[in-house]
């Protein structure tokens, strides 16, 4: 059994949080550069230029890309042959998150649902993190992280379609979600689509789909084709960067599919703003 020190995980998570808040990943930058080339609207082009300039300033001056530094979301694959010593893995991730948000001068955005009171003093600075664990063979801990802002979560939706709705039903539902959202989720967006499983499995899959590098192709040819069809369809909506009108409403569509119940076709659409702040480490 391999042993990993609690404090090593805390430090790794802290650094991951700080660098992800100020560095737009290369895949997202490339996707924005491509959108700038292809966009037809001058107003939207100017928005995309500002986003690229913003990414440059954020990196050079170590300033958060956006004031909404998000809730911390993790997908963690824990090897069956690795053990954390000195504390629990969950506590280490939360402690690293709190330190990263505090020391990186990031915003504490967790609050009570009803009183809306910020939880920074009662629970912890921007705590709790949202963590999805999975057990896998091996002796490594793989951690995927994203800072997920509120504006794009607010317009995300899940629905269980009748099986007869099929692929067309999925295309129509994604289009409806994006159309209703308009400029609110800060387009150009990435669209995570979770298909199948149960109600919550579809939602978690749609979130995980957003962790894939923006614009990389789906290895499953059938899903790849569906991604391209949906992308084309949503870009016909005309919403454009920041909703000011244009041909690039979405940068990419990412789909994850699971087997589902014979009676259902669950679909979840999770929207990611243009500032797709994600990264991963293996410990």
């Amino acid at each position: 059994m391999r042993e990993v020190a609690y404090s090593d995980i805390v430090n790794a998570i802290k650094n991951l949080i700080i660098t992800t808040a100020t560095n737009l990943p290369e895949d997202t930058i490339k996707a924005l550069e491509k959108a700038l080339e292809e966009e037809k609207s001058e107003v939207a082009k100017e928005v995309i230029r500002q986003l690229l300039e913003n990414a440059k300033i954020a990196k050079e001056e170590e300033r958060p890309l956006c004031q909404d530094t998000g809730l911390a979301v993790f997908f963690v694959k824990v090897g069956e042959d690795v053990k954390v010593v000195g504390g629990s893995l969950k506590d280490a991730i939360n402690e690293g998150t709190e330190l990263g948000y505090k020391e990186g001068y990031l915003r504490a955005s967790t609050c009570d649902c009803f009183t809306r009171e910020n939880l920074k003093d009662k629970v912890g600075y921007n705590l709790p993190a949202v963590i999805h664990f999975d057990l896998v063979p091996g002796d490594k801990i793989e951690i995927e992280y994203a800072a997920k802002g509120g504006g794009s979560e607010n317009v995300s939706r899940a629905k269980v379609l009748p099986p007869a709705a099929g692929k067309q039903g999925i295309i129509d539902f994604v289009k409806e979600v994006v159309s209703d959202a308009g400029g609110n989720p800060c387009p150009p967006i990435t669209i995570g689509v979770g298909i199948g499983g149960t109600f919550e499995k579809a939602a978690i899959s749609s979130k995980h789909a957003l962790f894939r590098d923006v614009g990389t192709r789906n290895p499953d040819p059938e899903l790849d084709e569906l991604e391209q069809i949906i992308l084309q369809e949503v870009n016909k909506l005309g919403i454009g960067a920041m909703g000011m009108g244009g041909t690039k409403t979405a940068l990419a569509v990412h789909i994850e599919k699971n087997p589902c119940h014979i009676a259902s076709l669950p679909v979840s659409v999770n929207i990611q703003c243009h500032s797709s702040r994600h990264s991963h480490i293996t410990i």
Partner: protein
Amino acid sequence: MATYHLKTPLSLEDVKKLKAGDVVYLTGTIYTARDAAHKRLVDLIEKNEKLPFELEGSVIYFVGPTPPKPGEPIGSAGPTTSYRMDSYSPTLLKHGLRGMIGKGKRSKEVIEACKEYGGVYFGATGGAGALLGKKIKSAKVIAYPELGPEAIRELEVEDFPVTVINDTYGNDLYQMGREKYEVKN
């Protein structure tokens, strides 16, 4: 699509010349407020009490910035989604508010109030918080410090870049832009 450089406070004449789609660079004092602060401002108006800043000609920026690093006036400071302020904005426009900066669609009531009282809704680029934060030269909390990121701050901005979304003539850039680029199947 014209470009203007305007100084705050804004006059009725200033905003009357703006049309949806115009680019404006704002310089001068603006105020920050989000949902909680808006509620308090409207409560004060209803009670006929004095507001923490002069509303006539003012511009309110919907923002909840990140904490400043030592020695800096403010952290990252991009716009937040504006619809949450929709129920409060018409009252403020009626009492002299001249400009609002945010992102995303406004309600019919806000668009109507812009027309009736002479106000403009500007869009700033969401997610460009680092770039926009640099246009803010100073910041001080002038009311409701207990609200944290939602406190009212007085900001001095220089060439703060915004686009006119809703003008004083009832135009809406979100609708106009989308209609122009929508491809119907």
